[in-house]
């Protein structure tokens, strides 16, 4: 297992390098640092001195890929590509491009905690609610409950998450005045602010997930071991919970695991709608302010989390299913 994880990590580093090259190409070749300087300084007349100063302050004043003036190895190392890539790989995110030039690393570490407060309960509740709902549908399969349950799922997944948010905010915060419309507080107070986004996010993803899980359960339920279990005289509840649920966990883990990076990065839309100062809102602010340093960092961080969570999923397989051996 140790060897497996090492190999996966090695492949992960390869992928990170690929991601880095991709984003570098996107951000520096399609538009030169000069364009970005002009964009960030703003105003109609931008002098070359201002641009040079902006580039120098942020370390964009080197050649992009290849430095012909430097001696020896430094031909490659004294370039924007090398310096940016190496600093990202050791998780030194540098400063943002905007005029305020905040320390990205600091922002990420403080905001990640906030994001986790929203996303972690959401992730666990999501699993619980979706699995229970789909198990209920499976229990009542071939009946009206199953049919209308699936109809409900299809209708729910046809509604954009934005509608849930707008209607939910309007109904619960404006009409009923149960919770504040938006904002955030630390400590126990956070519950008041997080309750609505968690509930709405749960609702907006329930339709799709419950339908997917139902299909996974039904796939399992047609197998021989289930028939054997029934033939032994086990009750339907025992068959469902002890046999089907356990075996369906593998596909469920795969599908839920692909959501893990977002647990850390925050639910983008929900955070910004509810004014929760997490990573998701940070990203949207950066996109709105066209701050490429932050977007680049987040792309990198996102793929790092994706790779880590994929390894976690594989490790979780061995825990759920003893037949799976990682070699």
């Amino acid at each position: 297992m140790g060897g497996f994880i090492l190999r996966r990590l090695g492949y992960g580093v390869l992928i990170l390098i690929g991601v880095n090259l991709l984003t570098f190409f996107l951000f520096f070749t399609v538009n030169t640092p000069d364009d970005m300087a002009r964009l960030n300084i703003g105003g109609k007349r931008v002098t070359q001195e201002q641009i040079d100063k902006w580039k120098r302050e942020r370390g964009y004043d080197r050649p992009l890929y290849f430095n012909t003036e430097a001696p020896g190895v430094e031909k490659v190392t004294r370039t924007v590509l090398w310096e940016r890539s190496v600093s990202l790989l050791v998780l030194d995110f540098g400063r943002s491009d905007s005029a305020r030039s905040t320390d990205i690393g600091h922002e990420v570490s403080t905001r990640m905690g906030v994001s986790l407060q929203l996303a972690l309960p959401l992730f666990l509740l999501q699993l619980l609610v979706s699995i229970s709902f789909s198990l209920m549908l499976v229990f009542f399969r071939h009946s009206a409950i199953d049919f209308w349950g699936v109809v409900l799922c299809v209708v729910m997944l046809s509604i954009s998450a934005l509608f849930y948010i707008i209607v939910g905010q309007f109904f619960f915060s404006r009409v009923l005045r149960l919770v504040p419309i938006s904002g955030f507080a630390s400590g126990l107070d956070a519950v008041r602010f997080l309750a609505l986004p968690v509930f709405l996010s749960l609702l907006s993803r329930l339709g799709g997930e419950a339908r997917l899980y139902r299909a996974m359960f039904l796939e399992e339920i047609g197998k021989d071991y289930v028939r054997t279990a029934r033939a032994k005289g086990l009750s339907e509840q025992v068959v469902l919970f002890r046999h089907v649920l356990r075996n369906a966990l593998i596909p469920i883990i795969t599908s839920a695991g692909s959501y893990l990076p977002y647990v850390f990065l925050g639910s983008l839309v929900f955070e910004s709608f509810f004014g929760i100062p997490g990573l998701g809102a940070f990203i949207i602010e950066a996109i709105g302010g066209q701050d490429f340093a932050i977007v680049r960092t987040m792309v990198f961080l996102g793929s790092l989390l994706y790779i880590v969570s994929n390894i976690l999923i594989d490790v979780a397989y061995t825990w759920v299913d003893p037949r799976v051996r990682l070699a």
Partner: protein
Amino acid sequence: MSFKFVLLWTDVALWLLFATLVGYGWRVARHDNLRATWAKVLRDPAAMCSALILLLFLGVAALDSLHFRKALPPSPGQAADKVFFDNRVQSLLDLALARQIGMRESTYSEPLAYLALTKESVTRDGKVQREYPRLAHGGAHLADPARDWRGDLVQRALVGAVGGLLLAGVATLLAAWLLRRSHGGVTAALRDIAADRTHYPVRALLITFGLICLLAGPVVALMGHYHVFGTDRTGNDVLVQTLKSIRTAFVIGMLSTLATLPVAIVLGILAGYFKGWVDEVVQYLYTTLSSVPNVLLIAACVLMVQVALDKHPEWFETGAERSDLKIFLLCAILGITGWATLCRLIRAETMKLRELDFVQAATAFGVSDARIMARHILPNVMHLVLITTVLSFSDLILYEAVLTYIGVGVDPSMSSFGGMINLARSEMSRDPVVWWSFVAAFSFMVALVLAANLFADGVRDAFDPRSRALRPRLAARKPA
């Protein structure tokens, strides 16, 4: 009056796509296998009813995809042989809705209202009063609105509803007339339709059509004199915006999937067929792409495109062409970032196919690799392509709303469901609440996405026998 056709990028792509659909239909008609599979879709009531709704939406989108610029009336002192064209690009739909587009108020007004939403200072008999002013166009034909308004509304709505029902009745008779051969006369066919004893779900289709007519009739009857869905902040008719948003949704939904296809199919088949290092490279490519959270990658690409567009104003003549190029590039970006899933599926299927006897036989006969891939593998993975395409259509429409909210979606000058929802966010917190554009966007978007989802389910069930077993059923459909 002369006019100049404007071929926008997305227009070309959409019409090519429609042509492809027709071509596919022809192909289906000629191949027994495909025809049998599609017959299953045709017999599925839910899929057919949603196909009807999708077709109506598609019709609106098609009308909105024929663009032209009108010639301006010659100004004095202008050379006689020179014609200048309006810098506004219009579509056939704009022409059909010219009256509604012209009915521009000053700001918000409620659906079907004849008064504005907010009080204004009006000078009457030399005194300044605060009162709700009459709308410039909504209900402007009423002499005494306080007395006539309600009656006028009911009368027009009834006329519209009766007209809609008549149309539905004609459709029913037409269906019965078409079925007269196989059911022994028109009356017998009518009876069979009523009892749902037809081969195809004609009754469900007619009921759906009747409902649509019943809803659309009053809207059509009222929209000449009222703002049926109200007006937005700048006083524009919300109904017009909603109808114009349909094309945007179709462009995003169809073109983005189309853009994924070439990359996904070519790389998927190559990886599955050659295995070895080709496979490794392709796998590396799609793992790298899919490891970046999708929204972030799209945002990054769109930001880059935006900067590039700002730098090159010479790429387009009019504002419409600019926003069109932007949405076209957005589709390309969605395609480039979204091919990983389909590629993975095709790769796996190709690996399975290449070991089968017919491919082995072709290899033994000395057929070239390229020919095997094109003639033997490609047709056999097309069902995957089809299923993925129809399934992702609705996802992409939902995605557009989120992207527009984040600020990396379609151009604000182009109406889209995402843009409407985005505005609705602040409108819902006004007092009095401005709910109509939200509700309009909501109902049209849900209708479109729901129809797309149900149709996609029908197609998947027909092409993938495994998924049919998972379908919930109340009762099996009676055979004809």
